[in-house]
């Protein structure tokens, strides 16, 4: 791993999901085969701090929904990390970037999901409780200028590598994003 840390104290989160990625390769009779996989990586100063690649516990019904679950999962890790960073930075007298707050950005490559997360008034009425809980919880924590959700092209999506097998070229690009080589 080759790192060249930046001076910024920004926590950046990349979240991605692979909708029902196991379907072609495992037993179609197994309910697991239609579960989606969420992956995310959180970086500080450009270096990965926390990452995860997990099969989602509930079955997502659409790509958008699976991405939304991934977003929600990543935020659950991002929030405590932000608090720790805030405490540590206060303790060490480190000046955060621009604002008095340490800002964070979540990058998401699915436009539908992005719209769902940020649009006002909300575009979707959550149909099931499992989604509703994630949906409302997630939206509550988005504070413009502090925790932002922004669009990113799939090519620059660093968390892609955590969700599905990639072609060697794509894999090398994602590895370069994360590991610096």
């Amino acid at each position, binding site marked *: *791993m*080759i*790192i*060249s*840390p*930046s*001076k910024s*104290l920004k926590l950046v989160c990349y979240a991605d999901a692979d909708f029902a*990625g*196991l379907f*072609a*390769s*495992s*037993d179609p009779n197994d309910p697991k085969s239609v579960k989606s*996989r969420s992956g995310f990586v959180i970086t*500080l*100063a450009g*270096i*990965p*701090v*926390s*990452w995860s*690649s997990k*099969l989602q516990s509930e079955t997502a019904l659409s790509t958008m929904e699976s991405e939304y679950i991934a977003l929600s999962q990543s935020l659950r*890790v991002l929030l*405590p*990390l932000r*608090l*720790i*960073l805030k*405490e*540590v930075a*206060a*303790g*060490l*007298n*480190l000046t955060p970037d621009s604002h008095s707050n340490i800002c964070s950005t979540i990058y998401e490559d699915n436009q539908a999901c992005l719209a769902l997360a940020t649009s006002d008034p909300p575009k979707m009425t959550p149909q099931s409780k499992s989604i509703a809980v994630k949906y409302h919880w997630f939206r509550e924590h988005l504070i413009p200028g502090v925790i932002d959700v922004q669009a990113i092209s799939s090519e620059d999506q660093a968390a892609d*590598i*955590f969700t*599905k*097998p*990639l*072609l*060697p070229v794509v*894999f090398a690009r994602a*590895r370069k994003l*994360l*590991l*610096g*080589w």
Partner: protein
Amino acid sequence: MHSGHGNTRFQCPIEPNTNLPIALVKLPCKQSSCETRSSANHIPCSACSTCHSSIVSFSVADETNQNITAAQKELLLWHWRLGHLGFVHLQQIMRPRPTLESSGDAYQQNHPIPPCIIPRIDSTKTCKPPLCSSCEIARAKRRSCDSTVHHRLKEYVLKTDHLTPGTMVSVDQYESSVGGRLPDTRGQERFGVKYMGGTIFCDHASGYIQCFHQVSLRATDTVISKQKFERIAKGCGVQILSYHGDNGVFGSNEFRQALIESDQFLNFSGVGAHHQNGVAERAIRTVTEKARAMMQHVSTHWPDGFEISLWPFALHHACWLHNHTPSHSFGFSPIELFCQTKSACHHLQRARTWGSPTYVLDSKLQDGKKIPKWAPKARRGQFLGYSPDHSSSVGLIRNLQTGSISPQFHVVFDELFSTVLGTQDDDPVWIELFHNEQEYYGPDDDEADDLQHFPDLDHGWLPAHEQCLDNTERLFQMPNMQTHTSADQDNSPSFTSQRNQEDTMPFEPSHPIAHNQDQDAQPDNEPPDISTPAELPTVGTSLERRLRTRQPNSKFFGNDWVNSSSSSHQSGHLFQTPLSRTLVGIHQPDRLQEDQIFDNLDWDTRFHGEYTGLQDINDLHTDPATGKVEWQHPFSMGVKASNADTPMLREIHKLSPAESNAWYDSMDVEIAALRAKNTMIEINRSDVPADQQIIKSTWAFRRKRRPNGDIYKLKSRFVVQGGLQILTPTEQTYSPVVDWSTVRLLSILATAQHLHSITIDFTSAFVQSTLPAPIYLELPPGYSVPGEDRVFKVFKSLYGDIRAAKLWYQYLCDALVKKLGFHRSSIDPCLFIRHGLIFAFYVDDGIILSARQADSLAFVQELRQAGFDLGIEADYAGYLGVEIAPQADGTLLLSQSGLIQRILNDLSLTDATTVKATPAHEILSHHANSPLLTNPSSSINLSWENFSISPPTLALTYHLPITSVLASPFIPKFHMALLSNELVAISWVPKTKG
């Protein structure tokens, strides 16, 4: 059973050796043959109705069998029912019972006690006994050469010495290498909580036998068994006055205490004299033979219904049968004598063949309710003996689907196994269990937790560079090896050398041990400095008498070690070093023989014998083609790989003398360090308050390695066996540790913001916190005070104490918050912050972060003043076990080459040139010729699994873009992880499907 017609007979060929009918394999489905068979059988034979079934077998006692007579069949049936009782004995039970007073009493003569069992066919009492195949298989023994045994019954003498039940009860323990299932768990329990043996009680006066299965053979469980036995005895109105046992667990304090409490007497057989406990040993043999025959019977007649883990039920039923069977000589059953009550043999008449298929009425019908007309009215179960807790006619029935065992009354027995498929071959389970005749000898009490340990690390699992090095050469990779030697000279402990005894130990030269041969072959390669005579202190110049002489327990000294040391002694120079003299005599001949057997096992069979212990971690993947068990589960690799660095005491004794002596020195250092810190004092055992638990202690060993894999320290730790600790309900054991993402966050901050970081290590951290109340410990294995019975009284918390981590956290947390002005992070309980300083700790390793170096060092000083004993190690790189190398272009390169190398070696991917800087898919194709990767269908299914690597290095899973599905049941899954610029791991999980 159905009554036979006798007119239409079906001739079934009989296999001469086993007296079992030869199965009719793959009969052509001719209607005629089907008709013949069904009319002959009159058995609702499912095999017959579908005729496609491949194997059909008949019970020997079936009506159609012409080879034995009807009387013999009945005799055989009773033989099966009564736990394969001897035929002579059985026929005796069928005759009127003799009475002792018959000579004088006319009434008695005219009214003899009726026979216990009245056969339907009269000639059963007198017919020539047939052979029972199960007995022949299960009870075969060597024939004595040309001598006949005369049973001489002393007239009118039934018993000598102990005439009243309860006067003397022999106790002993039995062990089983195969775990037995518990009655109430559906057979799903983990290996560690299965029955591993138990305690058997045999009353001298009556011959009454009772066995109680135990999960462990420790004193606590044994005392519980004793209480159970006494409760049963009390039910018969018998007061147990004294016990006779061998030493072992019956000599333990806990057992003695239980005896004193109930005012009983205990005498021991001599050390090693198992024959002096003959009554109990014989009782074990009686019931195990019965149980083995019954289980063998089931395995032959109903392989699908057979499970080896059912042995506790077989053993219990065997005891039950023994107790209810009238004796050979005077016609009373042990339970009649024990309870001193005459019974009418109802119990025995109700006996049914153990393990036989049963048909249990549907539970709704049992309650008098109705079920749908076409629903089945019964389900098939398996009879496992009579319930000890219910009415005597209630049998325990195992549900074949769920595995649960329930007491059932509405049951139909199929004792001839006529409704299930049998086999004429030897059952594979039995072959697997008995083919090598080698039993697993359980550990001694000191090492009771050994039960769950795994096989030693095979030589093949060692990293390549360790493999090619000799043991002692490996030792020289440790930089501080030489200082160990000099430290030992300073102390000059005067150990009484018993080398002569070792030399006279009997060994079989015909069984050379591989390890030994290595030793013999290699001594010339030893570096000369260790064997230089100038460095040897002379034998017997003792500077001061040591308080404790090290008295290595012979059971830890496997014979191959002794063998190697003695042979090396003969060969000359090396092993007369001062280090080797720290080992002294060999005692305890009683264990020696067992150890000899155990140690002489070659690796494969030993591994085989223990494999049930690995079932937990190893999903047993069986190759359907060869029937071979695959051992390549990655987790088992993990176990083996980590085992290399955490040896057992037993394994240490078997290392090369130089290395094992280095371990012994580290043990001495540990004890000395603990005593120097006033952690504990020695007291007499009698000084321990009566209400205090004396906990066992043991050793934990660890080879500490640098990130590149080199050993830099051998660490022995004296630990409490915390699992045996009994806590009060208010005491808690949970303690938090720092989250790894916090550590990563700190290290990134340190790098990005150019902060100063140091890591500190609290030496013997747990020992620094004081216990709320002192605890008492046994001396560690290998140490003893000759002639005295001493224990440790401990004031500070030791490793292994289950409260230690909690106490340590509390202690450190209090000091930081109250004395040093920190506040605890609201998110991570192990992160502490004060102005200009961050401190996080993972148990005893701390990381300090500050803008200026002076702040960090000042903080270390503050900690020392607060009473903490700690050392400064390095920056955070050492904390994480990562090598950090700044590159020319200002970037940093992080890697863990030692870990990578070990994983690659463990996976036998030692072709280093190929591995380095090669994309993963090329390595795969490079190794595609290895038998593990080649597959007949030549396609690969890749699945997602994370291979976890210690942080903060990033483990990424990488997969080939091949995602075709296999039709073969044998799907290899490749798990890969990439770490820095090298491939870390490829592992494969052969998985059986459906």
